[in-house]
């Protein structure tokens, strides 16, 4: 799947010659309020012919698809982020505005717009429509959710409305693909060749102008829309429970718990299966290729690398399944409402809690889901603290050290000491994430507090087909983006831990002679103050590929082998080799250290540059060192050295 944007033709050329228009399809864009069914309409129009990339230079997602009109003409459709106004407040909205106005660098202006409106919720969108009308680009109004409007007995005077807004209107039901051909007919009529280039005139409206536009929208609304005979009462009733200060929060926490469990337990089966499959496949290739560099590269580098990308997929799919369900049903806005105060205390936005929760499974989907946060500083803060949440890859490391060093005692009669330590490590992650974000927002990005203001949409049953399609889009984004960065990193780590070869007759483990081993030996003096020995520092280097790899590497370095059977052996060995202080210091290190190249890679992708991954790396490394130093010395002082 190519992500590169194809060469653009001058739209003026394309539309003036019908032959040329075959070569360079007309471009249309979808605009509309959030929750109007824009994504559903985009899916219905383009099917699977979608491409997701980033706009040049910004982190906003660019979704484009291709559709074929009933007349057989191909058009390119751009799905713009939802907005209430062309006045941009977030990077997403800047993109919407600039795309509509044809100001986006590297993007030709769309020849026509489809403004998507929720027919049952026209009041706010009419102002956006008036704003679009003033821009002067031809548009058609798609009155979506028309099935719901009809069910409610809402009567809309379409003819009059069309006259008032000066644009054609088509009623649609995106989830049932109703009204699409009529919509496309109108679009075709709008993109007829016109010699004159459409000039976009727009400037930021003042408060007075917004008031005037609102009054005008209100007048049109009253003239054209008769109130529904059977208005929706379900949403109000459901909200009575789901937004109840106590019950609502309890339900949310239960839901999150279920989600968390599902990600952990359901994903484990396919993930383990995949792990085994890739392990077996790697072993098989290693056995069937002539032993040597190629076999090692294919089995340890390539296959292990692809495997390490794919094992994330089940977790990501399950997590995004839940997130999409919550979003499509309209619950996500409620969850943000309920969590806003708690998150706000740490300087985070209410919407940050889903990304942070996701990060308990893995920081990668967590960071990917920060897209729900509009404000740039809020989003970056969330991205920066997400890896502090205890991800599942830390569990093998914690498990090994805890089982080796923490006696399986019960304290206070019921609590297992090992469990308490595990809990403490999770708590340390959460508390430090909240503290770090607090510091970021209070010290570095003081500035104004971004308002939390959000429409609470009507509840709706998620449409399975639409949901699956959005899930598929997410999965593809992960495979394309994360895969592109994770895979090369895995190969790099393989190179580092393979070359150069040990000299003939060498007795130590091979990794000891490699670049990784040398780096480990080189930085060992730096790590001595925090109680690390050279075996540990050597294990940290391949541990950058993924945290759990450190366990296997420790096995290799101590020459007991890294697979499950040797865990017990490794555990016993460590008991003799490490002091308790060293073990605790290692645990503290793993709470904070940026021991995951994949996360850094995804941060690079999401923030479009190496600045933020570098910041993340530096601050986490610093915290890790300080935490380990303090832990080690306190433990030694208490006699655990």
């Amino acid at each position, binding site marked *: 799947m190519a992500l590169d944007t194809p060469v653009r033709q001058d739209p003026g050329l394309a539309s003036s010659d019908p032959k040329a228009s075959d070569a360079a399809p007309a471009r249309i864009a979808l605009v509309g309020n959030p929750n109007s069914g824009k994504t559903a309409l985009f899916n219905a129009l383009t099917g699977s012919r979608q491409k997701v990339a980033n706009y040049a230079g910004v982190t906003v997602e660019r979704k484009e698809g291709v559709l074929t009109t009933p007349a057989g003409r191909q058009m390119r459709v751009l799905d713009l982020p939802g907005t*209430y*106004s062309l*006045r941009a*407040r977030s990077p997403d909205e800047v993109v919407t505005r600039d795309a509509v106005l044809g100001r986006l660098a590297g993007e030709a202006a769309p020849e026509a717009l489809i403004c998507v409106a929720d027919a049952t*919720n026209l*009041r*706010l969108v009419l*102002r956006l429509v008036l704003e679009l009308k003033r821009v002067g680009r031809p548009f058609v109004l798609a009155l979506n959710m028309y099935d719901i409007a009809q069910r409610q007995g809402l009567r809309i005077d379409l003819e009059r409305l069309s006259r008032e807004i000066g644009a054609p209107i088509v009623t649609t039901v995106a989830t049932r693909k109703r009204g699409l051909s009529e919509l496309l007919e109108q679009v075709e009529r709008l993109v007829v060749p016109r010699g004159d280039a459409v000039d976009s005139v727009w400037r930021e*409206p*003042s*408060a007075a102008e*917004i*008031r005037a536009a*609102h*009054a005008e929208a*209100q007048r049109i*609304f*009253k003239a054209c*829309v008769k*109130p*529904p005979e059977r*208005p929706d009462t379900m*949403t*109000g009733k459901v*909200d009575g429970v789901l*937004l*109840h*200060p*106590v019950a609502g*929060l309890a339900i949310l926490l239960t839901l999150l718990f279920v989600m968390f469990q599902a990600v952990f337990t359901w994903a484990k089966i396919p993930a383990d299966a995949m792990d085994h499959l890739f392990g077996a496949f790697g072993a098989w290739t290693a056995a069937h290729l002539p032993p040597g560099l190629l076999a090692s590269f294919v089995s340890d580098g390539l296959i292990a690398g692809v495997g390490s990308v794919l094992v994330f997929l089940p977790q990501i799919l399950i997590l995004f399944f839940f997130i999409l369900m919550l979003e499509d049903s309209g619950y996500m*806005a409620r969850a*943000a*409402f*309920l969590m*806003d*105060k*708690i998150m*706000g205390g740490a300087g985070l936005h*209410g919407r940050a809690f889903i990304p942070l929760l996701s990060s308990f499974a893995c920081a990668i989907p967590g960071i990917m889901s920060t897209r729900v946060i509009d404000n740039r500083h809020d989003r970056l803060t969330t991205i920066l603290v997400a890896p502090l949440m205890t991800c599942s890859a830390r569990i093998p490391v914690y498990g090994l050290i805890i089982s080796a060093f923490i006696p399986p005692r019960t304290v206070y009669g019921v609590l297992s000491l090992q469990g308490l330590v595990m809990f403490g490590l999770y708590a340390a992650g959460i508390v430090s994430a909240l503290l770090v974000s607090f510091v970021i927002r209070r010290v570095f990005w*003081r*500035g*104004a*507090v*971004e*308002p*939390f*203001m*959000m*429409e*609470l*949409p009507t509840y709706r049953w998620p449409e399975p087909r639409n949901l699956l399609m959005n899930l598929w889009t997410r999965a593809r984004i992960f495979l394309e983006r994360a895969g592109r960065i994770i895979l090369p990193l895995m190969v790099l780590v393989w190179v580092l831990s393979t070359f150069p070869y040990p000299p003939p007759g060498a007795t130590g483990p091979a990794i000891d002679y490699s670049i990784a081993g040398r780096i480990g030996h080189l930085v060992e003096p730096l790590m001595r103050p925090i109680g690390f020995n050279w075996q540990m520092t050597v294990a940290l280097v391949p541990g950058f590929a993924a945290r759990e790899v450190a366990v296997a590497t420790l096995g290799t370095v101590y020459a007991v082998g890294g697979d499950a059977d040797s865990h017990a052996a490794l555990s016993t060995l460590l008991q003799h080799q490490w002091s308790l202080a060293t073990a605790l210091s290692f645990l503290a290190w793993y709470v904070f250290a940026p021991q995951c190249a994949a996360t850094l890679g995804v941060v690079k992708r999401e923030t479009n540059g190496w600045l933020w991954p570098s910041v993340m790396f530096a601050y986490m490394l610093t915290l890790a060192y300080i935490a380990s130093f303090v832990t080690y010395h306190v433990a030694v002082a208490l006699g655990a050295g």
Partner: protein
Amino acid sequence: MSEAFALSPDFNSAESRAEVPRSLGLARRGDRGVIVKVTGVSGAAEAIDAQELERRLLEMGFVEGARIEVLHEGLFGRDPIAVRVDDTRVALRRREAGAVAVKFDGR
């Protein structure tokens, strides 16, 4: 919906007195009224630019004359609040709601 805009429901109208407008930021669950002024000046610390806030509120439907009802309050400090503005449901923090003055129905 549009009727609600024009007529205020006779919510304890017998006792209604000429209320002075109060800040939406101080409203309690169940309070209803009509927006009389949107200023953008919320009085909260570290607020965004008043003009910007005013425009954002207007864009979300907080305009003079709109009917408003407080539907829900959060658990901690009764913040944020969920309100119905005409027939749109909107969630916002009290700090920003402070920029909206409402003439509440008498009670």
